[in-house]
């Protein structure tokens, strides 16, 4: 790549490349995000490459290994342009057929297209599939269109247009643009991004920093990971715009070491941006200096908290510090530091490129734009969904998510990661935005969304998340460190049938103190799963306490496995699979479970084809 010396040179190159690659050119995008890679998408890509080459089709068809398309459950995904045909669960042995039938003859291979598990309808085009149809993809859409290692690919879809526009404005005007767009931080707290930039820029200093928080630690969440892996240049461009607006010369991306592909892709992207003269000294001859370094985090959940993140970057233990002073005034090494989340940075170029009016036309009064959620759990379509702010939980879970699998009924959805609240069916009409979710006892968080069905025990869920957070607490505050430990013990008492109604009162009392008196957001929000389940699913707690019964049949101490006389036909499979040899019975005779030996692992229930194993 040539080094661009002026904005004009970059603009000319962009124009040239956009013209040379018409939007309707033929292309195959094989998803090489982490999920599809795990399904073997790289071998699919390899076979495509060989087949296209040997058949000479590589001149006609452009082949791309792209970032995550979001529909991870159905990987490996192969998307074709410009037709929009989406093939899912593609195997390497399918490639020949795809080339022959679809690429050459233009025919659709029905079995590789998506069939809705609920309506049994078939869909050829990506945009028609309910999972995608309900989405409004601004940030994620680009993932499917580019090879994340290619700067030219990013330029083709309009990349660096936002930065070029920013360079024509005064820094204060750039901040103003972000402010007017109504963009709020995507990391969880939802602080207005433009205001944060303004404070940072307004603090007198010789050195300022911009930081990208890519320390995504929520169990089951991978929004940030997918953006860094799939479109690293968008983060670099966002940070460039921010650095220009705030007068920062150094940028840091705090990225989890457990995301090796993200580390690698971002590293490559930084190199090519440097080669192109988009990072370094005197960028595009404007006199603006800026460069970015990657700081790998060790995987502590608490390091996503900004003051702990700063401590970690400085080489200290990742322990949160009291704010104020806020990082925008005194952050890294005491200098004004602006910390934004991956999604926020990736959104900034779009706002600059298309204008604040366009952005603020999406979303609600108080929450503008779109938000990516990691939709997982007991839902038909798991994966990443990007929806406009204000969409209801119902539309997300039942629209994009396609509802609950196996004919089971919906019980709750947890938003906002491990410290989010669990909302019941009666709250499904809640619009998803920063303020409403908090009002309902949950939060936006960084965008985790876990769906639970009737087979989920809400006490067990609360216990699980408290267990996670007590392990991840930095241990600074008595209330969080000891409080969560004690809360975990009390919840275990409930799950194991040792609790009384006083235990529930103590749980509530203790949770109140943890929320009111802990220093950072990890502590203050940690009790959301407990308080929200106590509020919306109190009857389940009471059943555990008073009747010593787990209504969902999850808590091992309160359930027994027995075999139903009527349904058991003596097939012996349960006896064979029982790891404890707790099941006895002759062939074609009723089997019996020895309760002394049974460890309640549930394998017998899973293997029985005749629904003869009863949990009560």
């Amino acid at each position, binding site marked *: 790549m040539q080094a661009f010396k002026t904005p004009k040179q970059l603009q000319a190159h962009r124009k040239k490349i956009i013209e040379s690659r018409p939007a309707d050119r033929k292309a195959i995008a094989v998803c090489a995000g982490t999920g599809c890679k795990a399904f073997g998408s790289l071998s699919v890509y390899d076979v495509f490459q060989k087949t296209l080459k040997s058949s000479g089709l590589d001149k006609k068809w452009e082949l791309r290994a792209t970032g995550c398309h979001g529909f991870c459950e159905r990987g490996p995904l192969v998307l074709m342009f410009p037709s929009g045909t989406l093939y899912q669960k593609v195997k390497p042995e399918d490639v020949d057929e795809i080339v022959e039938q679809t690429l050459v003859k233009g025919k659709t291979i029905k079995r590789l297209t998506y069939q809705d598990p609920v309506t049994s309808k078939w869909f050829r085009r990506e945009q028609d599939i309910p999972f995608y149809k309900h989405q409004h993809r601004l940030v994620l859409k680009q993932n499917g269109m580019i090879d994340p290692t290619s700067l030219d690919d990013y330029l083709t879809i309009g990349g660096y247009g936002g930065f070029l526009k920013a360079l024509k404005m005064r820094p204060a005007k750039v901040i103003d643009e972000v402010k007017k767009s109504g963009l709020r931080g995507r990391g969880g707290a939802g602080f207005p991004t433009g205001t944060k930039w303004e404070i940072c820029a307004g603090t007198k200093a010789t050195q300022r920093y911009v930081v990208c928080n890519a320390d995504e630690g929520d169990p089951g969440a991978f929004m940030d990971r997918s953006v860094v892996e799939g479109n690293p240049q968008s983060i670099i461009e966002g940070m460039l715009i921010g650095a220009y607006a705030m007068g920062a010369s150094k940028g840091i991306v705090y990225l989890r070491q457990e995301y090796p592909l993200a580390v690698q892709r971002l590293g490559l992207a930084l190199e090519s941006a440097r080669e192109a003269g988009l990072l370094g000294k005197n960028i595009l001859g404007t006199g603006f200096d800026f460069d970015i370094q990657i700081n790998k985090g060790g995987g502590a959940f608490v390091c996503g908290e900004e003051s702990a993140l700063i401590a970690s970057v400085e080489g200290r233990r990742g322990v949160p510090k009291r704010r104020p002073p806020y990082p925008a005034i005194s952050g890294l090494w005491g200098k004004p530091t602006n910390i934004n989340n991956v999604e926020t940075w990736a959104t900034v170029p779009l706002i600059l490129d298309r204008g604040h009016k366009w952005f603020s036309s999406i979303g609600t009064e108080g929450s503008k734009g779109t938000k990516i959620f990691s939709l997982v759990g007991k839902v038909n379509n798991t994966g990443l969904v990007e929806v406009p702010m204000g969409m209801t939980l119902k539309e997300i879970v039942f629209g994009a998510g396609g509802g609950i699998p196996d004919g089971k009924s919906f019980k709750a959805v947890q938003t906002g990661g491990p410290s989010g609240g669990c909302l019941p069916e009666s709250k499904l009409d809640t619009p998803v935005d920063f303020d409403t979710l908090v009002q309902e006892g949950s939060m936006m968080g960084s965008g985790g969304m876990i769906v639970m069905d009737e087979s989920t025990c809400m006490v067990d869920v609360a216990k699980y998340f408290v267990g996670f957070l007590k392990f991840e607490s930095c241990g600074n505050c008595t*209330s969080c460190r000891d409080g969560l430990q004690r809360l975990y*013990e009390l919840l275990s008492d409930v799950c194991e049938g040792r609790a009384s109604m006083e235990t529930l009162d103590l749980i509530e009392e203790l949770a109140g103190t943890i929320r009111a008196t802990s220093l950072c957001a990890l502590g203050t929000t940690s009790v959301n799963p407990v308080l929200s389940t106590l509020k919306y699913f109190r009857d389940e707690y009471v059943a555990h306490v008073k009747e010593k019964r787990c209504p969902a049949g999850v808590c091992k101490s309160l359930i027994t496995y027995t075999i139903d006389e009527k349904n058991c036909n003596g097939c012996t499979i349960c006896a064979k699979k029982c790891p404890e040899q707790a099941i006895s019975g002759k062939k074609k005779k009723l089997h019996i479970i020895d309760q002394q030996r049974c460890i309640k692992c549930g394998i017998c229930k899973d293997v029985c084809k005749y629904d003869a194993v009863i949990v009560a």
Partner: protein
Amino acid sequence: MTVQFTIDGLEVKAKEGEHLLDVARRHGIDIPSLCHHEAVEPIGACRVCLVEVRSGQKTTITTSCNFLVEDGIEVHTDTAEVRKHRAMNLELLLARAPKSDVVRKLASASGVTRTRFEPLAYEPLPNCILCELCVRTCDMLGHHALTTVGRGDKKRIGLPFNKPSDNCVGCASCLSVCPTQCISVKDTPTQRAIWGQKHDFILCKVCGAPVITKKHRDFAISEKGLPEDYYDTCEKCKQSAASKRFASVVW
């Protein structure tokens, strides 16, 4: 810059950048705390020094030790909310350090005489409340020998990687500042045992009594620049030597 606000109705003035607890104590208002020490930076670990701060429409419960004072705020140190949460945090600490007199006294002042939580088997430092005063003091002194190990419910105080540390000079300041006195320091006439390590004492050149550990003296000489012979005699022998010297001058 000076800021002006009220604590329990009392008008007080303070410098910008001061912490609320220091200002309150200067004005004779007692706020209980366990992890605060004037020699080191506050971290808000024990969550006992809670107060209620009203600012405009907003009322928050917060620790006072690390709260930077603001102009016009209204601070209340003894509201029902404050008492409730302080009592709960003290109950948690009482379960952690049931044998500590300091914790028991503070807890009972908050009406907590027993804890509803199971006793915590806390090794290797029974009664440690993880206030980190030892770690902060060790850092402030420039030794950097102590640290917290692990996180969450596994957090402990100890030497890095639980290995003997060259940085520890055996000064025992960690014990001096420890509110629950849970750190073990054992002195013999010639050695001090602390943090699983043994340190030789400098012995008084007159009577042979221990003066200070060798490593501590070496640290002091290199850091503070006093001559070596300042550290070679014990307190009593120095006193009598000084008396004799003065007597010979006067008479």
